[in-house]
């Protein structure tokens, strides 16, 4: 009986490893391609490379692809780390992988073959009404929408499986969120939830909830493409797109926090336990995570002013509590711990900085009075690239350096990883600094050609983006060596 159980566990472990390996390999390759697409956009704005039509197709590919692939890749890394603590299903994860892969390929086809170029926001009626110069045909819009829907369905499946596994382990949503710790019924320990699971639970609730408005808006837009006489409110479309879209972007950083909670303690050799303060912080985030997107709608004056008030309060409420508890927790965890700064903790720790600073820049823009000036300027890509490229992507890289030796028995090169961290982090900060400065100058975003006199900002940004690309390619090259069985021998313990 014991042997059978062991074999079963061994079989599950192998399945978990196989699915994670597939995810990381595919996600890594896609992220590199999408990052290079982003580099081309910046070069176009600085030096002129792509025609306007191609610029918008690449913009759509880069934006949508990064959001979708980063979400599912960081979810996969988190899933692997959590698979020891929770009975997560490799089968469900494999189905989610296939859906994401097909979805990503459809988005690539819609943008690179069909030249669909609305940007990731696909605001109605743009998909069915490209404008006086025909930019794309109906099939490209339909393929894009279906591709995006598949990625959202994949994440909803991930979320459902996480909730199922968490409830099997803890018995209910309340205990997954740490309500028993909050009420003092239980002290944090092996029988209670931990910070990673709390963060993951907030994400999973958001993932299921976001699927509903996502399905409604994709359905409405597909119906409009099939029968142009069927029309609906453009403002409703914008609301639904940002309700689902903002939440799916927002939760990625929480998965990153979950990874930090789970991985960093192994390097610091100190536990990161749940506390009442941490539980309260995440409950506040859970309350506000669905309301924060209102800050995208400040300029839509047809909607009530109350919306701006709610958006302002919720934006601050959703960001600050987890940032504060996580940053303070992280600093205290590492302080005098004797941590050895290998590539994994370097990327994870640097990712915390990206989250904190990008989050703060987002809060600035989420204040209605400031948004009046920064709305749709390059401040917006500045802040979201700070917590996406310098937050989520760095968390993914940290997780890759931590997970790959356990998956493959072969380690990535530490000297190469540490060396690559410099261009990625410094180049990344240079890239976003150019955007922040452009935003303060009120330069509009999503312009294929920079305004006269301001191209130098895009040129500076391009140089820094190229520096990032060098670092990313070094890591990817090393990763590819491991995938093809040519990596270094595995390290036994973290940081050794």
């Amino acid at each position, binding site marked *: 009986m014991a042997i059978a159980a062991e074999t079963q566990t061994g079989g599950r472990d192998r399945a978990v490893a196989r699915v994670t390996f597939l995810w990381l390999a595919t996600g890594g390759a896609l992220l590199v391609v999408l990052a290079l697409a982003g580099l081309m956009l910046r070069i176009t704005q600085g030096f002129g490379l792509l025609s306007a039509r191609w610029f918008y197709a690449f913009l759509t590919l880069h934006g949508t692809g990064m959001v979708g692939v980063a979400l599912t890749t960081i979810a996969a890394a988190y899933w692997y780390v959590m698979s020891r603590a929770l009975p997560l299903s490799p089968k469900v994860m494999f189905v989610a992988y296939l859906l994401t892969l097909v979805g990503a390929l459809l988005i690539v086809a819609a943008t690179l073959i069909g030249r669909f170029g609305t940007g990731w926001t696909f605001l109605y009626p743009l998909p069915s009404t490209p404008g006086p110069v025909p930019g794309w045909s109906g099939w490209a819009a339909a393929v894009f929408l279906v591709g995006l829907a598949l990625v959202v369905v994949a994440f909803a499946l991930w979320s459902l499986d996480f909730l199922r596994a968490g409830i099997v382990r803890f018995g209910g*949503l309340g205990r997954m969120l740490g309500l028993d710790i909050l009420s003092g019924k239980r002290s944090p320990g092996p029988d209670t939830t931990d910070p990673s699971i709390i963060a993951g639970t907030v994400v999973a609730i958001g993932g299921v909830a*976001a699927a509903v408005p996502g399905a409604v808006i994709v359905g409405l837009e597909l119906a409009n493409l099939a029968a142009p006489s069927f029309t609906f409110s453009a403002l409703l479309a914008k609301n639904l797109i940002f309700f689902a879209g903002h939440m799916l972007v927002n939760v990625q950083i929480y998965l990153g926090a979950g990874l930090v909670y789970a991985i960093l303690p192994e390097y610091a050799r100190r536990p990161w336990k749940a506390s009442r303060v941490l539980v309260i912080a995440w409950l506040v985030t859970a*309350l506000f995570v669905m309301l924060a997107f209102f800050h995208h709608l400040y300029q839509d004056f047809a909607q009530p002013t109350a919306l701006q008030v709610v958006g302002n309060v919720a934006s601050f409420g959703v960001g600050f509590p987890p940032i504060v508890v996580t940053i303070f927790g992280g600093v205290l965890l590492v302080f005098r711990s004797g941590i050895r700064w290998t590539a994994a903790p370097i990327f994870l720790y640097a990712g915390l900085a990206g989250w904190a600073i990008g989050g703060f820049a987002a809060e600035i823009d989420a204040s209605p009075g400031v948004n009046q000036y920064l709305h749709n300027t390059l401040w917006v890509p500045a802040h979201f690239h700070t917590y996406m490229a310098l937050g989520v992507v760095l968390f993914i890289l940290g997780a890759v350096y931590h997970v790959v030796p356990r998956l493959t028995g072969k380690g990535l090169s530490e000297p190469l990883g540490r060396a690559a961290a410099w261009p990625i982090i410094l180049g990344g900060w240079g890239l976003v600094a150019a955007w922040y400065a452009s935003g303060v100058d009120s330069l509009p975003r999503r312009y294929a050609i920079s305004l006269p006199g301001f191209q130098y900002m895009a040129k500076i940004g391009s140089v820094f983006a190229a520096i990032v690309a060098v670092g990313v390619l070094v890591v990817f090259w090393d990763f590819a060596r491991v995938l093809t069985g040519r990596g270094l021998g595995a390290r036994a313990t973290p940081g050794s």
Partner: protein
Amino acid sequence: MSRIALLSESSTAPRRVRTEAVWDVVVAGLLAVAAGPSPLGIRMADSSLAVHMLAEHSLLLLAGALGGPALLRLAGGSRPDRRRALGWCLAALALVGLWHVPGAFGAAIRHQPLHALMHLSYVAAGALLAVGLAAVGPFDRAVLFAASQGAMGTLALAMASGAVAYPGYPPGATRSAGVAMFVGMQLAMAVVVAGPRLGSLWRTRRMAIPVAGSLGAAVALSVVFAGLT
């Protein structure tokens, strides 16, 4: 001594359960009357769409949620199985959703009997949800909760953006009600997550008499004042 205590407990327990269930039904009934046909309820419906949809209908749902399980206990009914319980939950959500269709809501505003039917539907939906949610598993509850967050949010946004308008109220009222509903659903989330704990805060023996007294007095006073004015 302990045997005597056990014997007396076992003989009084069913009676106590029955008495508590009766009190729960009384409180639920008074709450439904206060929020529904009483001058208080009519005032709530007339004041604004947000108060009508959010406050009044939530109170009616609450009345059903308190009274439904108590009635089931009084009738000696047993917990439904998972499939039936899920069906009850979905039926309750469909019932609530139905009255959010502008045509149905507008008709209820115009015709008093339909308005009463709408309010009764909310009480029934509260009862179905309370009994159903207690009988389904924690995973079903989590999924129902997260998915209904998304669905309620979608409807709230349809109202806030002006895509949906309710006859009988000015368009601005629908937009404001949409924002209020979006915020309200977050509060509902807190209630659902903390549900079992909040439920255990209700102590029929200690709280039913003062709450019933307060509700009864409020209804009586509102009737008197409505008569005077």
